[in-house]
């Protein structure tokens, strides 16, 4: 090799190495956040979020500004970067791949095990427990479970929004159907009852009956709000075995299939229906959606119905984690302890039901949710969080989400063999479950 060629090779190698150095190198160790050391110059922190609501962002900024004011030697400013929800996790991981990790990020519950297992996040427990006045014991154990590994806590579950059933009482009464609130009071609020009401209301109005919001025959995990009433789950607790073929799941999916193609209680594939625009009689969605309701129709909100296995509350969670790959994990963890302390958690409760037992009262939540009565808040939010389960989550969730989606597609035809399709789903995901 000539000197020139060798030099060119070195330059090319250096360029590639520089690119890799920028993008691929980072610590793979799961660390613990500790006491922050005062940096030479105060640092800038970044938190990625999926809300673009200006009121919410203004609240975050005011809490952050107070932290900067109290800690001028540590932090010069905190930036909240909004990423659209649809592409949130993809954008976040692409940032990580580009060596541009934010200091803190919101993390969706379905991806919690993937982030926690990977070692991408630092253990926050020492900082949160050690922060004076944090009241760590006030955090509900059930809300922390998803974000814990061994004795560590790898994200703070800042939002715990229960799923509930919103009902359009105008459409239901027009169809001559019983009021769901009365059925709840009488202990007759079951999925079968909801299906009958939905089918009758849809027939009467020419609109749709029961919509599982954001399912759209793609986001199948949202169906867990129904199948939890059958005691069904997509995989075993250890995540190693497919349970789509278990009798409870077969029964639940048969119920959903029949409600869709049998009596028209649920919208068929390719049909769009927005409950909040008056297109449907009922919808299962998170309680936080109540804010978009107006007075264009009479509505109510009730807890999720009971299935054959009883009534099961379901919550959608979101956590805030600190990235080990971030430039200042210790300072970011210290900021998180501030951001989520009891006083600030109460402010955040205006938008996000907190994981703090002391704040989960109808009184606290009522101040922030004027559209819901105290009775509704008690029955749906406070009681809805207690003993609730989260939507399906798994360390390989991204792969499972897409694989199950593709394998479930044959189910969404009128003449589908439910048991056979679910058998195929298991056949498709078992290699992924076994590979974890």
């Amino acid at each position: 090799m000539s000197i020139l060629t060798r030099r060119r090779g070195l330059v090319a190698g250096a360029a590639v190495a520089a690119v890799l150095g920028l993008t691929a190198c980072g610590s793979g160790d799961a660390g613990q956040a500790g006491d922050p050391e005062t940096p030479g110059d105060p640092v800038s922190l970044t938190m990625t979020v999926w809300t673009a609501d200006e009121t919410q962002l203004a609240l975050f900024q005011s809490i952050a500004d107070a932290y900067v004011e109290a800690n001028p030697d540590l932090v010069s400013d905190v930036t909240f970067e909004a990423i659209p929800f649809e592409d949130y996790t993809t954008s976040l991981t692409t940032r990580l791949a580009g060596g541009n990790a934010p200091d803190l990020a919101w993390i969706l519950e379905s991806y919690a095990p993937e982030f926690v297992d990977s070692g991408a996040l630092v253990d926050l427990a020492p900082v949160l427990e050690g922060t004076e006045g944090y009241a760590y014991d006030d955090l509900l154990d059930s809300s922390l479970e998803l974000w814990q590994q061994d004795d560590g806590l790898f994200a703070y579950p800042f939002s715990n929004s229960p799923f509930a059933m919103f009902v359009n009482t105008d459409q239901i009464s027009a169809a001559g159907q019983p009021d769901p609130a009365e059925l709840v009071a009488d202990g007759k609020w079951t999925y079968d009852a909801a299906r009958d009401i939905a089918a009758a209301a849809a027939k009467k109005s020419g609109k749709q009956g029961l919509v599982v919001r954001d399912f759209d025959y793609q986001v199948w995990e949202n169906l867990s709000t129904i199948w939890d009433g059958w005691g069904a789950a997509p995989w075993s607790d250890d995540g190693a075995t497919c349970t789509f073929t278990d009798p409870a799941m077969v029964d639940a999916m048969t119920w959903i299939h029949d409600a869709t193609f049998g009596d028209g209680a649920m919208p068929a594939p390719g049909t769009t229906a927005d409950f909040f625009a008056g297109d449907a009689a009922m919808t299962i969605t998170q309680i936080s959606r109540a804010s978009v309701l107006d007075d264009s129709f009479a509505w109510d909100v009730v807890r999720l119905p009971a299935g054959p296995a009883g009534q099961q509350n379901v919550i959608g969670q979101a956590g805030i984690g600190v990235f080990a790959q971030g430039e200042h994990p210790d300072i970011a963890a210290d900021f998180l302890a501030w951001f989520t302390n009891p006083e600030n958690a109460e402010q955040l409760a205006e938008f996000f039901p907190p994981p703090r037992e002391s704040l989960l009262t109808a009184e606290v939540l009522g101040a922030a949710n004027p559209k819901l009565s105290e009775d509704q808040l008690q029955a749906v939010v406070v009681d809805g969080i207690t003993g609730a389960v989260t939507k399906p989550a798994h360390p390989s969730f991204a792969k499972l989400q897409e694989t199950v989606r593709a394998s479930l597609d044959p189910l969404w035809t009128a003449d589908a063999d439910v048991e056979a399709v679910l058998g195929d789903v298991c056949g498709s995901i078992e290699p992924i479950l076994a590979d974890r």
Partner: protein
Amino acid sequence: MTSSTLTRPRARPRGARGTAARRDQLVGYTMVAPQVLGTLAFVVAPLLVVVWYSLHEWNVLAGTFQFAGAENYERMLADPGLRDSLVASLWFSVGLVVLNVSLALLLAVLLDQKLPGTTTFRTFFFSPVVVSLVAWTIVWRFLLQDDGGINGFLASVGIDGPNWLRSGPTAMLAVIVVQVFKNVGLNMILFLAALQGVPEEVQEAARIDGAGPWRRFRSIVLPLISPTVLLVSILTVVGSLEVFAQIDVLTGGGPGTSTTVLVYYLYQQAFQFNEFGYASAISVLLFIVVLALTLVQWQTRKRWVHDEV
């Protein structure tokens, strides 16, 4: 008589000539530098880096990057998802090339006639080319839904339309047709320019020899525009292998995996499953497929392209 003396032109000093030549070289290099540097930075370097990535297992979340040798390439051989995506890509490419090229040629031939209203006709088919791809596709998604505009129209004439985007064959057909209508105008203009370059006297001679319209088109026009057919074919084939936005917006790769073409599969592996090393290996495969198809078309041009005979 005056005498004149021829004198040898004075040679420019050697050093000055060398300086001018170097200056010319410098100007030349300066002129091409932006293009060369751009190509090196944004084409060659990423290509090399992707090949390098494809030899590694890269866990984005854990931040680990480990040499894996040919593991990612071995994995491709046993990956049924990749096989399905290659089949979907094949169907999409064949459908797109056949429909797009034949429709573009037909429209160009019609436009080449001296008929009233050709300008409006041309504008009508060319306008989708300048429309945003995503906006175009979103509008089509609404039209193709079960309760969308197309089925609404079919219902008005007593036809129960299918759920276009929810069954495999109709979903693939829908994606192809949406892409054809998006780009057929561009190919139509290329064909039209070629048709208008066919010498009138050649056609006239054939007409005098008794050749009918079809015979003149097949034996005179088509061979003379074959270089454009080659160009359009290469562009359409390469374009068909790069399709992404239409799949993402219309079907998300479904139903099942029926419309998960190679680029969409690559996207899923990289940005949904965080398998950046494996996705890099797939992108190397895609590069080889595009290169091979282009080379095949280029090499076979001598058999059917007029100017190359």
